[in-house]
């Protein structure tokens, strides 16, 4: 009999904890976007906007010279083929140093970062990525002279590929 009442007490406590958790979530959801960002645990990956700002470091990126090849509709988000090329002479004086491929709708914004050298011959990146949902893919190129180029391409995803 005592055993039973103990169990009942635990149940009540669980109910209380559960209730307060629901309330906390409701408060977070009601708060502004900024408030939610502050509540975020430190080990969460940076958001897309944070990552983009960090790469650019306050500089403006020119929307040019980047070509992103992607399927218009990706049926399987687990493997979406892509090819990114940047129009550049790739000479010792003028080449694409770094190319960031970013996702705006995945749990983590980074997909891959390519570091080129003049030996690469062409700023070219081709691989397969995971996409969680329909979103825009961004490519940011950092040139050897310190300037940035940016390209954007939308992709529709039928089945997300992040395990859920």
């Amino acid at each position, binding site marked *: 009999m005592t055993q039973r009442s103990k169990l009942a007490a635990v149940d009540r406590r669980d109910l209380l904890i559960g209730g307060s958790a629901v309330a906390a979530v409701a408060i977070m959801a009601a708060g502004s976007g900024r408030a939610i960002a502050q509540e975020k645990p430190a080990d969460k990956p940076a958001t897309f906007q944070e990552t983009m700002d960090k790469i650019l470091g306050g500089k403006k990126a020119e929307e040019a010279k980047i070509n992103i090849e992607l399927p218009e509709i990706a049926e399987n988000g*687990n*493997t*979406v*083929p892509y*090819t990114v090329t940047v129009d550049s002479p*790739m000479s010792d004086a003028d080449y694409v140093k770094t190319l960031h491929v970013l*996702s705006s709708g*995945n*749990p*983590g914004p*980074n*997909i*891959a*970062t*390519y*570091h*080129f*050298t*003049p*030996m*690469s*011959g*062409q700023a*070219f*990146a*081709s*691989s*397969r*990525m*995971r*996409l969680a949902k329909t979103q825009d893919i961004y490519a940011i190129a950092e040139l050897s002279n310190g300037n940035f180029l940016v390209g954007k391409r939308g992709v529709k995803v039928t089945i997300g*590929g*992040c*395990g*859920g």
Partner: protein
Amino acid sequence: MSTKPRIKLPSPIKAGDVIEVKTLISHVMETGFRKGSDGNLVPRNIIHTFTASFGGKEVTKVDLSSGVSANPYIAFKFKVPGPGDLELTWVDDGGNKIVEKVPVAVS
């Protein structure tokens, strides 16, 4: 990280050509966002770095993240200065490292 990666070069190659090198390696590329059957997160295990170098000089380095599909396919371009060995390296979170040397014959 046990099976041999597949590497494909075009042929024939002339000095000064910009060639496309295609690589494919088998790896789970576990994202770290997925929950296992016990309800806990499966720890991240991905190939985080891929490097291609020729004659000791880096050609291309790629930092990969969870957003790269399993069994990553990576293609890159390479301006062939002459004959030599192309050295490709894959490193994963478990510290496993696979190094492949591909001779580049120039005709």
